């Protein structure tokens, strides 16, 4: 029985079936709003299932549609709730929307996108340093009133950027820096590919026309895994002055970088690659600010890393991966756990780079318990409080 043959024309349906078909279409829309990727073929197959009598038993119908429409575990886990909410009128819809954290928020409905814009506006004010930092910021700004404003900007601590214009400028600079780095990194990667070993089978094949005398040799090229970058960004309150610029920088690096993943953490970890793949930087940041807005409380780096190691590491890390952690290392959880999880992580990837904006401050020493526990497993511990220090990372990354 073919899927297409089973679906009758819309006109031929009686009134009830037509109503059901409309309802099905509405259900598909609900699922799409919730981040399910459903094409036309799936809708047609669903209609075929209804025609085949699956709709007569709700349990069976739910199970059948679940297999058809889910494409990954997060879909699989959320489907029953969405189905019940839509078809049986149970009040779980809003809950399952909120529960599907990363995925749901990455593919938000129109309404949540609008909310997101508002949230974005709020987070922009976050970047303005408050309290005791503010006067310093003003004095720094005074010094910069020169002709070569852009150059100076490179050496100014991000937290001292107060004017919206300056922040915007820093964002632009971070994005273009990221773009330049990405291009150079990938190009060098291509140039390095060289084959060493002889491919016997292909050599014989190529030389059949010479009666099997191996004249033209075919070498086997070892396929180089492209460098993969995984960024874990601390978005807790203590980092708020830096989060904005780093998000923009990460967006720049990830954009079109084939092998990259980004996570944001504060008290929990959220996978944000999907939001980051958004071409338009402003929209990507809007979507992200939804996720990045933490409870405002502490940072559980150890716990977040544990989640990462358990749930994501196997998928996103391979032997040519570099993990970049951007955090001030103020751990409010268990510092010993952080040490253990760092050791785990170090086993799985090539390099761990820890960027600590605070390190650029004068007289800063890594005293925080968290950073002390983590440091033995870190390959490069660098400041990243200015554009210049970000740019200084590039030579290191190319050597990976």
């Amino acid at each position: 029985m073919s899927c297409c043959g089973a679906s009758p024309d819309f006109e031929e349906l009686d009134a009830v079936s037509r109503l059901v078909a409309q309802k099905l279409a509405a259900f598909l829309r609900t699922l799409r709003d919730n981040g399910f990727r459903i094409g036309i073929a799936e809708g047609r197959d669903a209609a075929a299932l209804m025609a085949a009598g699956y709709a007569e038993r709700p349990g069976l119908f739910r199970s059948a549609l679940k297999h058809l429409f889910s494409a990954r575990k997060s879909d699989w886990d959320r489907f029953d709730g969405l189905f019940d909410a839509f078809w049986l009128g149970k009040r779980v819809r809003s809950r399952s929307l909120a529960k599907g954290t990363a995925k749901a928020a990455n593919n938000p409905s129109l309404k949540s996108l609008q909310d997101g814009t508002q949230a974005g506006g709020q987070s922009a004010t976050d970047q303005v340093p408050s309290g005791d930092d503010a006067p310093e910021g003003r004095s720094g700004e005074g010094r910069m009133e020169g002709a070569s404003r852009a150059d100076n900007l490179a050496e100014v601590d991000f937290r001292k950027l107060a004017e919206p214009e300056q922040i915007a400028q820093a964002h632009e600079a971070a994005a273009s820096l990221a773009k330049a780095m990405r291009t150079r990194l990938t190009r060098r990667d291509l140039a390095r590919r060289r084959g060493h070993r002889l491919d016997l089978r292909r050599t014989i094949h190529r030389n059949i026309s010479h009666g099997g005398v191996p004249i033209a040799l075919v070498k086997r090229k070892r396929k180089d895994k492209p460098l993969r970058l995984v960024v874990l960004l601390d978005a807790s309150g203590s980092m708020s002055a830096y989060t904005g610029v780093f998000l923009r920088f990460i967006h720049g690096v990830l954009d079109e970088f084939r092998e990259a993943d980004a996570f944001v953490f504060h008290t929990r970890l959220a996978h944000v690659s999907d939001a980051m793949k958004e071409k338009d930087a402003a929209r990507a940041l809007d979507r992200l600010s939804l996720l990045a807005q933490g409870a405002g409380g502490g940072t559980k780096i150890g716990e977040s890393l544990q989640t990462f190691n358990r749930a994501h590491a196997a998928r996103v890390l391979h032997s040519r991966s570099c993990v970049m952690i951007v955090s001030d290392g103020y751990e409010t959880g268990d510092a010993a756990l952080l040490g253990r999880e760092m050791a785990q992580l170090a086993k799985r990837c090539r390099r761990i780079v820890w960027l600590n904006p605070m390190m650029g401050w004068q007289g800063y020493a890594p005293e925080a318990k968290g950073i002390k526990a983590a440091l033995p497993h870190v390959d490069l511990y660098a400041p990243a409080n200015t554009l210049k220090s970000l740019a200084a990372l590039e030579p290191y990354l190319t050597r990976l």
Partner: protein
Amino acid sequence: MKSRDEIAKGLAISGYIADNELATAISLMQLLKRPLLLEGEAGVGKTEVAKALAHLHATELIRLQCYEGLDQSSALYEWNYQRQLLAIQAHRGTDSIEDQIFSEKYLLERPLLAAIRRPTPPVLLIDEIDRADDEFEAFLLELLSDFQVSIPELGTIRAISIPHVVLTSNGTRELSDALRRRCLYHYVDFPDVDREARIIMARVNGASASLSLQIARMVEGVRKEELRKVPGVAETLDWAAALVGLDVRDLHDAPETVQETLMCLVKTQEDRARLTREVSMRILGKVA
């Protein structure tokens, strides 16, 4: 076409105890002619589904194990170069040699080509698709939608029968959306106590109902411990076989043997150290 209950029964006969949802998925495979993508932790029996499916349809199982660097020549077809060379040497001077050496006689069938050339539709198991490269995944997608293969020297080979395709993935790499959308999706979870006990009884000779239930409960307890490598169904079966082989009738009668045979369940040094005597006795204590 078989109904869901018939499918569940058929799978049970071949030794696979399926839940209702999996039986639904298999009936959908027939109805919609879509491949089935199985995801889940290692050791929950994803590969077994394909074997049981082959048994259910009384057909052949063709397996393609994916790995990094898997290419067309080992997945689809390859010319038998050695044989071609021999033919050239043997028939030196004849003109028709070129037509001869590019005929089916000199073609080596690999799993994918074999699967579409069987008179009765076989079960094609594409195991651990996440280990193959992106390029291979794209190529596979094309094959799964058209079911035809073009060989430049020979022409296009169309499918004689459309195989039942089962793909499995362990999640070591994110699969493309296109492939996911093309497939029916089923997440294989660890079985619940009742189902695991039935699995043990079906697969281990001599395991009584009460012992199977005890083992299943014990394993459930072990899975709740924070282990690095959670024991799968295969480990459970190993352990059950070990206990039956050592003539254990009741876990409470032989706590020593239980502790000593736990190596069937946990496979890393770290986990072994975590399952101390106290821990395993505590879990055993909860097992009725």
